[in-house]
């Protein structure tokens, strides 16, 4: 909603400016300028530098949390609608127009549910586990570029940071499984741990392909390197292969079907979150949706150019027309396209068995992505990409 209002404002301002100013003027009205304006205003009105920094960080955190809550509402609704669409049924259609308030109703239900804690459980870890999982998925949001110059933290090793921080979620899952003192939970946690640890390799290797081509680990540089075309188009077949590998491996890494062995209902009741109820259970759900968004955002940034509009080589006129669509629309459009693909996986493929899961990773994906890395290196050295 906020984004929509912002977008409208942008269009309005564009309208006012259009007659007198150039296109470049329009491009300066962006999220980065809004953020800079807020920062400058704070710095002018508050003399203490430390306080300004703290307030900056607080605003960022609150905005991020608010954005994620709205995002999770939307993703939950989207997931149900996509599922209904795939199975030729309506999906939610009772609460609100087209069932759009169904998720709000669910959240209220979860809020009022009693949060049970098993007597035998390890209380400290039991309460800590959902927090760690959510925090781990929140941390990954830091280097994502939502629009031009609009990043929380443009760390110089953004790709490495993302892959390292996303692996923290394993600890949370293992903690949840262990502290429940329930064999189903423990089994689910063990499966999930093995799965995440092994599929991380393929995710890393497929990201490295782009790092080799763009020559930087910094996400803003990677986006900037796609000014004359996205990598999926510039990088030919090897990059398409690594995109497919990334999609498969990251679906496994966020424990979504067909790789949801950690919570295979038929075998393990609900896997590592069997014993959780109420809001703590909702936190696992929240983390799952945040992870889904993060993975898609990474794919959109790395392979599809992030906020970079669709540019074609040196077609200046075409590129200018594309520049009129704001960066965050591009970013969210690409991200939600990939989310849509991953959601369709869930209702397309049957769940893998444990040995099939490990065979797929160690005997197929990993060798393919290693050979692919060599191919990409050769391509980068010989300059065979556009």
């Amino acid at each position: 909603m906020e984004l929509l209002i912002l977008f409208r404002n942008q269009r309005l301002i564009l309208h006012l400016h259009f007659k007198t100013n150039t296109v470049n003027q329009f491009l300066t009205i962006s999220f980065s300028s809004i953020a800079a304006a807020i920062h400058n205003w704070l710095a002018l009105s508050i003399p203490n530098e430390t306080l300004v920094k703290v307030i900056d960080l607080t605003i960022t955190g609150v905005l991020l949390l608010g954005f994620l809550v709205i995002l999770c509402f939307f993703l939950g609704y989207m997931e149900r609608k996509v599922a209904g669409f795939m199975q030729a049924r309506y999906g939610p259609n009772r609460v609100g127009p087209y069932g759009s308030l169904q998720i709000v109703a669910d959240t209220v239900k979860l809020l009022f549910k009693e949060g049970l804690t098993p007597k035998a459980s390890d209380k400290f870890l039991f309460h800590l586990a959902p927090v760690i999982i959510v925090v781990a998925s929140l941390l990954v949001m830091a280097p994502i570029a939502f629009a031009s110059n609009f990043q929380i933290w443009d760390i110089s090793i953004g790709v490495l940071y993302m892959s390292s921080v996303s692996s923290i979620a394993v600890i949370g899952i293992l903690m949840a499984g262990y502290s429940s003192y329930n064999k189903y939970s423990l089994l689910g946690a063990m499966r999930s741990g093995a799965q995440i640890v092994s599929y991380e390799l393929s995710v890393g290797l497929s990201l490295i392909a782009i790092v080799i081509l763009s020559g930087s680990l910094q996400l803003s540089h990677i986006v900037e390197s796609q000014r004359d075309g996205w990598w999926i188009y510039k990088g030919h077949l090897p990059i398409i292969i690594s995109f497919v590998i990334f999609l498969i491996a990251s679906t496994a890494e966020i424990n979504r079907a067909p790789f949801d062995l950690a919570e295979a209902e038929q075998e393990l009741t609900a896997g590592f979150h069997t014993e959780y109820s109420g809001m703590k259970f909702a936190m696992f759900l929240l983390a799952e949706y945040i992870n889904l968004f993060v993975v898609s955002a990474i794919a959109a940034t790395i392979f599809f150019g992030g906020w970079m509009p669709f540019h074609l080589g040196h077609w200046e006129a075409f590129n200018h027309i594309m520049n009129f669509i704001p960066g965050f629309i591009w970013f969210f459009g690409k991200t939600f396209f990939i989310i849509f693909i991953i959601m369709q996986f869930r209702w397309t493929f049957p769940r893998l068995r444990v040995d099939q899961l490990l065979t797929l990773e160690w005997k197929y994906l990993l060798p393919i992505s290693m050979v692919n890395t060599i191919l990409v290196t050769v391509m980068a050295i010989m300059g065979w990409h556009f």
Partner: protein
Amino acid sequence: MDFYDILFWILSVMAVGCALGVVLSRNPIHSVIFLILTFFAISGHYLIMNAQFLAIVNIIVYAGAIMVLFLYILMLMNLNADAEPQKGLLVQIAGILSGGTLFLVLLAATKSAHNEEINKVSTNVGLITNLGKLLFTKYVLPFEISSVLFLTAMIGAIVIGKKEPQLKNGEEHIA
């Protein structure tokens, strides 16, 4: 107080407190969790010194990989709570003595160490470009040799972990 000073104190208290928690907690799983928190605090220190690569590698290698393995092993071994073995008095005294000696040595070493003030804002030593240049020029030989060492360790683990084929024909192999 500077922003970095506040962060430094928060991280330091966290590091020391969690390190104490590692030693003092009875449950081994809790110890591992405290150890992970300690690593995070130390990574925060690296970040304050603008050594981003070191910080992230610290998280990847220690918190991400080694500690997960630790958790696995402990969970598989110690499913019953309070399975802590009781130790005799002699062992306890010996432990206190050796631990105290190590503590003394560390304390002496840090006390006499040359303390260099790092400029928190402008230092670029820990950034990946500088580190990469150093690794592939000045320290290229040790770097390559250590990578061969890691490869050897990996192959060794596979050799040890490989089962000899004991199954007869027709029997189903259970992975």
